[in-house]
């Protein structure tokens, strides 16, 4: 042990000497601190933001463009009926505690996630699994109840990363994964430090050390970047500051896309918004451009349905809900609400919702719809709006990738109940032919846009502010992650 520590130290010293030429430390600013460090038992995106791809890896993984690539599984075979997946694990993969990755770990992970008492926040990802067996040390067979075209995609989520039974007890405080970085320490309320994993199976990380510093306040984030206390700030929280960074040669500003469809969600089950005419009136009353400009200072891409514009199957349906207050007033009159009506507008904390909400309220007032704004904490929003369905309107960004399926759940908080859409969704889940899938997806997008289920506002953009010399940062955010494995300082 002592000898090991000595060699490690010697190694660290030579690295340090080498590091004098090429900078190898990185401080990343993040707005939210993870509540704990187990990505498989909480919804908090902040956990993945620190650990995904850096510390933990799954069978498959997302690439920077959102594609699904091999992860810990080098390759896989799919049976002809699409129900049986046989994963071939990479050889020589070690967890950070020195234990080897084997098929047993995969079985443990998947069984734990789909167990009765599972605390996985995305349990639905595993719901289709019928059985998981280890065929030998490096071969795992997963059998699905029915074919699922999205299974490999599901396995790339942060909630599906592979964990080991040996380290599961303390995973919330000391995460042990297989990634290119290993966990070093966590000063709660302040920072988490990762260091390079010398025994990584793949190409070693180029940074020696990465520190995530948690700065929730946007003003403080601005000052920290300006003072170069942090070198990169993904999901930079104050878009109004971006022009200042762009004008400064010390920084680069990367603006990428996310999976976040930002919608003005409407309560489809409660009058008067249960009336499609009224929902259409709301849709035409809102001016997406002004909302994006006012709330996001121009960042984002307008959307006309609940689908990411960078996805190949996206169709631009914004024309179905063009800004047209005159038409909106007519529609209201047609619905028997010529004098307008009053409803609630409940807003969660992010600034797109709070600022966007104030603008939406002003625009709705313009056609005669009065809104009572209530600002809610997330916990209250979940209780009142999401679970209690006690709302008229709300603004929220749905950041899960490929989540149009939520419109097939009549008990989902906006309570859209369309047999036609539900049939489309059922057809999609068993369809594996890419062309037919594409057709169905277009039909689904069109259905909800024509029904004006929600006011579709814009696709959330992700601005990253970084030191101008940094390379290899993700621009887009296909999932919540800060993948540092390919990040390096340009000399």
């Amino acid at each position, binding site marked *: 042990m002592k000898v090991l520590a000595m060699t490690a130290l010697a190694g660290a010293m030579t690295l340090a000497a080498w590091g004098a030429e090429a900078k190898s430390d990185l401080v990343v600013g993040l707005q939210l601190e993870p*509540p*704990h460090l187990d990505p498989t*038992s*909480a*919804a*908090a995106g902040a956990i993945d933001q620190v650990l995904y791809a850096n510390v933990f890896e799954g069978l498959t993984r997302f690439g920077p463009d959102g594609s699904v690539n091999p992860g810990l599984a080098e390759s896989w075979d799919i049976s002809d009926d699409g129900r049986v997946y046989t994963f071939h694990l990479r050889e020589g993969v070690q967890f950070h505690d020195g234990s080897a990755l084997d098929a047993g770990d995969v079985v443990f992970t998947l069984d734990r996630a789909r167990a*009765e*008492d*599972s*605390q*996985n*926040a*995305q*349990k*639905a990802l595993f719901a289709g699994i019928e059985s998981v067996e280890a065929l030998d040390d490096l071969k795992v067979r997963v059998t699905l109840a029915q074919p699922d075209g999205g299974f490999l995609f599901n396995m790339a989520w942060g909630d599906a990363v592979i964990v080991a039974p040996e380290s599961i007890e303390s995973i*919330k*405080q000391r995460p042990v994964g297989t990634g290119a970085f290993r966990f070093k320490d966590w*000063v*709660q*309320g*302040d920072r988490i430090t990762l260091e390079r994993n010398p025994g990584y199976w793949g190409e070693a990380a180029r940074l020696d050390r990465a520190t995530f*510093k948690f*700065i*929730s*306040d946007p*003003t*403080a984030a*601005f*000052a*920290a970047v*300006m*003072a170069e*206390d942090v070198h990169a700030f993904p999901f930079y929280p104050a878009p109004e500051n971006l022009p200042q960074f762009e004008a400064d040669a010390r920084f680069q500003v990367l603006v990428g896309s996310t999976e976040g469809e930002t919608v003005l969600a409407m309560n489809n089950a409660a009058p008067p918004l249960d009336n499609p005419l009224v929902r259409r009136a709301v849709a035409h009353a809102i001016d997406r451009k002004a909302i994006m400009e006012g709330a996001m200072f121009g960042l984002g891409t307008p959307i006309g349905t609940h689908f990411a514009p960078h996805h190949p199957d996206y169709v631009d349906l914004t024309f179905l809900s063009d800004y047209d207050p005159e038409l909106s007033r007519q529609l209201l009159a047609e619905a028997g609400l010529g004098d307008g009506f009053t409803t609630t507008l409940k807003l969660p*904390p992010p600034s797109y919702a709070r600022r966007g909400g104030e603008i939406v309220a002003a625009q709705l007032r313009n056609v005669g719809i009065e809104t009572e704004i209530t600002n809610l*904490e*997330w*916990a*209250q929003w*979940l*209780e*009142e709006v*999401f*679970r209690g369905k006690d709302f008229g309107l709300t603004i929220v960004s749905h950041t*899960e990738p490929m989540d149009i399926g939520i419109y097939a759940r009549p008990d989902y908080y906006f309570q859209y109940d369309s047999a036609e859409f539900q049939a489309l969704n059922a057809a999609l889940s068993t369809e594996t032919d890419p062309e037919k899938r594409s057709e169905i997806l277009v039909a689904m997008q069109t259905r909800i846009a024509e029904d004006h289920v929600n006011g579709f506002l814009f696709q959330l953009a992700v601005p990253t502010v970084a030191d101008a010399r940094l390379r290899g940062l993700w621009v887009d955010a296909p999932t919540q992650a800060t993948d540092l494995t390919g990040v390096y300082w340009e000399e």
Partner: protein
Amino acid sequence: MLRYGARRAMSLFVSLLVASLVIFLALEIVPGDPAAYMLGINAEPDTVAALRAELGLNRAAPLRYLDWIGGMLQGDFGISYTYRTPVAGMIAERLKVSLPLALYALALSTLIAFPAGIWAAQRRGSAVDVGVMGVTQLGVAIPNFWFAMLMVLVFAINLRWFSAGGFAGWDSGFLAAMKSLTLPAVALALPQASILTRVMRSALLDTLGEDYIRTARAKGLTRGQALRRHALRNAMIPVLTIIGLQFSFLLAGAIIIENVFFLPGLGRLVFQAISARDLIVVESVVMLLVFAVIVVNFAVDLAYAWVDPRLRGER
């Protein structure tokens, strides 16, 4: 004295009991479920139920209350719902920021208020007095979070003398840590120093009117000498009382300033815990602060009664 002490101890006990009940009941009716918050919008209902069971949230409220109180009596504050670490440790961690910050602000406030108050009292009615009193009027009226914002703009963003916020941590060295507490301490100290200056001045002026000061003056001491030798000591009672009050206020009341400078202190811990519905943390921190204030008051009462027997009868 013993009987008085016993009666006060009894009422101390009842106060703490009532306070703990009020805190617990208030948080019982807070809408929002920590388990649902943790698991987010895609969670299945049975997953939420499983987490609730693990957190012990499905037990009856009276049982949870007794657990909480019983644990606290043994120094065990429970396990945080969100962080899953002992609450006592989290509080200790935050106190490393809040306590030095409160002391720093108090020290600044005292260092400003003593000379300013004495100076103004010595030159009562002069331009100095008017000037000092005018400044304290401004100091009392200024919203300290606004003052803090302006300081960040000037000293952190424009001049870059200080970082805009955050806490460097004690392991980065005493000076670095103190530096990151400086702007917040100044923002906190300004209104407190103004209040203390006014108290100091008027306490001195009051004692200056007393007979023994007149005697001292008659014996040939100048106004300044009489003030320094005699009045100052007697003016300390109200001044120290105010300082005591200010300390407990600073410990809990820094919440807004902690937000401006994103310091990981006690106030922000409570703020974050409330939004995450980590109620066990909220309960314990608030109870701890209330406990501190009640016990300090108790000690002060006893001390007064000891000094002045007349107070023992009633108050």
